[in-house]
């Protein structure tokens, strides 16, 4: 028996209208299938359609044409509320601008999706404690989002996205606002959940984030121009910094 891709797009198209009513083709005929456990990095210049693509995959925006399949089920033909249910069950999102609920504590923000997804309060709390611990945020659990730095808020957003152990993690430049130390915590958690089998589709410009992925998809002007495995080391036993930086002296 073969398992269906976690997410699949078939000839996916999104055309926006500009302010003056002109068509803006943002995604132009994308075919993409992501298998269970895969970590796919989406790269490409600004304006190439990366955000639009992940929004479409998660049902946060409606396609112009084409198909979207989640876990073997056709999703793009669902009603808005049908999509919302599916999304809550199967997808965790992290955006460039973390949207946390401002009048709830960090702990409640992270527990909410698990509770909405039907987890027991105890299970939701344990999962929250684990995730906040992994991200170095245990002592911020009682804080309100506004009391946190941007980096901390982004890590909370990641914890929230993972709270439900979603079938698919979608992320749009999740380290875009983080300094290198905060980025390192996010990287560690991403690589750990990936090793545990989490399927991830993530937009990034960050080389370190992309380096964790199994596969890179590169967009240009709304089309996929490259899709393939990250080349691992050739014959050498292991890379050194000397492959990149030549020290002189």
């Amino acid at each position: 028996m073969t398992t269906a891709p976690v997410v699949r797009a078939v000839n996916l198209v999104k055309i926006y209208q500009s302010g003056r009513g002109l068509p803006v083709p943002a995604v132009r005929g994308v075919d993409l299938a992501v298998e269970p456990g895969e970590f796919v990095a989406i790269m490409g210049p600004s304006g190439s359609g990366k955000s639009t693509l992940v929004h479409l995959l998660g049902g946060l925006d409606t396609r112009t044409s084409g198909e979207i399949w989640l876990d073997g089920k056709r999703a793009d033909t669902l009603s808005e509320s049908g999509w919302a249910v599916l999304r809550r069950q199967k997808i965790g999102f992290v955006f460039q601008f973390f949207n946390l609920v401002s009048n709830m504590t960090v702990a409640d923000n992270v527990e909410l999706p698990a509770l909405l997804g039907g987890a027991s309060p105890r299970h939701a709390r344990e999962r929250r404690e684990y995730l906040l611990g992994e991200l170095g945020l245990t002592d911020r659990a009682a804080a309100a989002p506004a009391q946190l730095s941007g980096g901390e808020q982004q890590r909370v957003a990641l914890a929230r996205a993972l709270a439900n152990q979603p079938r698919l993690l979608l992320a749009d430049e999740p380290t875009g606002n983080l300094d290198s130390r905060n980025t390192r915590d996010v990287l560690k958690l991403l690589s750990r959940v990936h090793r545990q089998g989490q399927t991830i589709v993530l937009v990034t410009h960050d080389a370190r984030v992309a380096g964790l992925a199994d596969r890179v998809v590169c967009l240009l002007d709304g089309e996929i121009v490259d899709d393939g495995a990250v080349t691992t080391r050739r014959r050498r036993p292991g890379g050194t910094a000397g492959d990149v930086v030549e020290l002189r002296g």
Partner: protein
Amino acid sequence: MRQSLLALLAKEPAHGYELKQALEAIFGSAYPSPNIGQIYVTLGRLEKDGYVRSVGVEQSNRPNKKVYYITAAGREALLTWVEEPTEGPRVRDEFFMKLVLAPMTGLSDRMALINRQRRHYLGLIRDLDELAERTDPGNRVALLLIEGAMLHLQADLDWLERCQEELP
């Protein structure tokens, strides 16, 4: 390697093998370890230039080993090196040459070149990640060297993206 050997000798006299070990201990596995032959060749040149001197130390059952000392002229040369501004990063332009010239010859198209190079950079990043994981967390020097290499690769990737946007 001249200056790094002089710097180590300015700290204390040492023989060739000790210098090799000291470089390995400082930079860790992040940097390709120097070959002992190269170290002796460099020491020989430094000696000829009057920057170091050596004395033989007797060893029972083994050939004498040479211990190297830095001279006053050596200290002077080291100081000059430390105080002069260091050249900025070298842009490795071999790929850029390929990118600009190869399509003119009809040998390759730019998209294919850029895609291959991007995957190569990401593979290097992956190697560096693994290296960082294997590196002793207490070795700040080695970890900073790895981080520096990653930042260079980030710049290379960004440049690649600009090339993809701008070149037809």
